[in-house]
């Protein structure tokens, strides 16, 4: 008996050691990712915070690094987000409503739509740039390098995010609510418009903000559709040429710095401003979710 218990005792100590070692290993890996993020943030802040100022926001870009600013890109981004939102909200919500409330999921065409959306969510963003170039900027619509083309390209890119979030929000509304409404003599659309949608709005809004958060930082599609990098005016309409914050940042990164002009702090400051916008948007999303989320 005692010989056995001794052997068991030893094995479990060794095993516990292995367990502890494994857990520490996991923690170490997690720490590596956390540390990298921290170093990245510190690096960007260190490089850019000095240059971030009201002048920076209110000036236009220039060859002279001291005088350059991000105003045109900032307004370009705002215009792009406006067009993007105006597109993804109706189309995304309508698609989500169709798939959740009207579509018979046994029919092959509805399943095709679903798989298609899942696939579109994983297509590289630069391919959307090619799509925009071929159909919106040139080709059939030939809009040119304008705000409308840029906004729609970004809209197509992030549309799956809105559809997926919208579907989840609509699905979360219990069937009993729909039954109660229809049993009173309401039509299907009356039920959706007056019961299901109002209850889904917090989830949908969160999804839209998530989508815009992705769109705001996208550079590759805008490069391909030809967003110009040196623009010294704000957009005046949907048919204006434009630049955007990621494009401007990319331009400053790409310019070689020399003794006269150091563009790196400009790029870093632009990045900082972009991150601040992102934090603001996500805070709104989190606040929305906490304040308005429906608990059934």
């Amino acid at each position, binding site marked *: 008996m005692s010989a056995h218990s001794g052997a068991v005792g030893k094995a479990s100590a060794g095993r516990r050691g292995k367990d502890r070692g494994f857990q520490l290993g996991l923690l170490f890996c997690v720490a590596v990712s956390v540390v990298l993020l921290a170093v990245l943030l510190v690096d960007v802040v260190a490089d850019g915070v000095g240059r971030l100022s009201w002048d920076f926001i209110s000036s236009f870009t220039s060859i002279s690094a001291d005088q350059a600013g991000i105003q045109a890109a900032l307004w370009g981004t705002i215009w792009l987000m406006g067009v993007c939102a105006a597109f993804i909200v109706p189309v995304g919500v309508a698609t989500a409503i169709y798939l959740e409330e009207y579509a018979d999921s046994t029919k092959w065409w509805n399943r095709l739509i679903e798989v298609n959306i899942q696939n579109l969510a994983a297509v590289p963003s630069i391919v959307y740039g090619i799509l925009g170039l071929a159909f919106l900027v040139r080709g059939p619509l030939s809009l040119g390098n304008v705000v409308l083309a840029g906004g729609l390209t970004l809209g197509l890119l992030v549309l799956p995010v809105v559809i997926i979030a919208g579907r989840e929000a609509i699905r979360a509304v219990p069937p009993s*609510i729909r039954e*109660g409404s229809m049993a*009173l003599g*309401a039509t299907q659309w009356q039920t959706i418009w007056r019961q299901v949608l109002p209850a889904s709005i917090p989830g949908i809004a969160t999804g839209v903000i998530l989508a815009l958060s992705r769109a705001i930082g996208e550079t590759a599609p805008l490069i391909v559709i030809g967003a110009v990098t040196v623009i010294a005016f704000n957009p005046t309409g949907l048919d204006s040429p434009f630049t955007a914050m990621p494009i401007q940042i990319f331009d400053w990164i790409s310019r070689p710095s020399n003794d006269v002009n150091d563009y790196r702090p400009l790029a870093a400051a632009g990045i900082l401003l972009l991150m601040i916008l992102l934090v603001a948007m996500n805070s709104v999303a989190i606040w929305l979710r906490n304040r308005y989320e429906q608990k059934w």
Partner: protein
Amino acid sequence: MPDQPVTEPQDKPQEEEGRGLSRSIGVRAQGPAGAPAIDGLPPQKKKAREPIFDLEDVQVSYGPKPAVRGVSFDIGRNEITALIGPSGCGKSTLIRCLNRMNDLIPTARVEGRVLYHGQDLYGPGVDAVEVRKRIGMVFQKPNPFPKSIFDNIAFGPRVLGMKGSMDEIVERALTHAALWDEVKDRLKTNAFGMSGGQQQRLCIARCLAVEPDVILMDEPCSALDPISTGKIEDLMINLKQEYSIVIVTHNMQQAARVSDKTAFFTVELDDEEHRSGRVVEFDDTEKIFTNPSDSRTEAYVTGKVG
């Protein structure tokens, strides 16, 4: 109003087992004249029985297999008709045919005839939305909307385009549902803050607000405590003066307490070895519980079978 079981003196040994049973579960031998009147409703008048629903060999299937078949009985005006029987025998399936709620299930198929005031509910050109305006439903689990009490009641009248002051409509509905006094000071608060029993009476008020002809109730008290159950049973008895009510219930005593007619359902194996529900017996409630014609009915109401 709680029921007092009437105790029988022990010096009548020849009394039928059934009669003794019916007393102990409190069957109302007389009509509901003794029930407390609720504001605004005219007193009960005796009149000839008018059927408003006529079911002729109704069969409902989900997919290929029938869930309930061979249902033929009628439902009378200003009566409470109870559908009783063990679980899974198609009572809920059948009641959902009466307001075309089965339309919401894609695989559901209804055969036979469901006549409402002589018209086939499933006839061509019949609009299910119009049907539901006249035949309302209260569900097993109270399902108030995530809105204020006022907006819950006002929802139906608004979408149906009913004319009149919404305040008056809401007050009238809540009064009919015996809820007005309890909530009149907090109409704008969220309905989710109410207790279960109040929520169910809210759902009844919501149903009443669109002025239906018939009220269907699918086990309305099964999620509620006994006191709330009692309040709703009293409410039902008062409501039948103006509406016709069909109630599905698992609770035999409830059926015996409130209903005028009762249909007893059971599950059977049919020719192809499928289980499906059917109506065994349909008669006056008193007869079903004191002197049922079918032995299966007797087995169920005396508690021999579950």
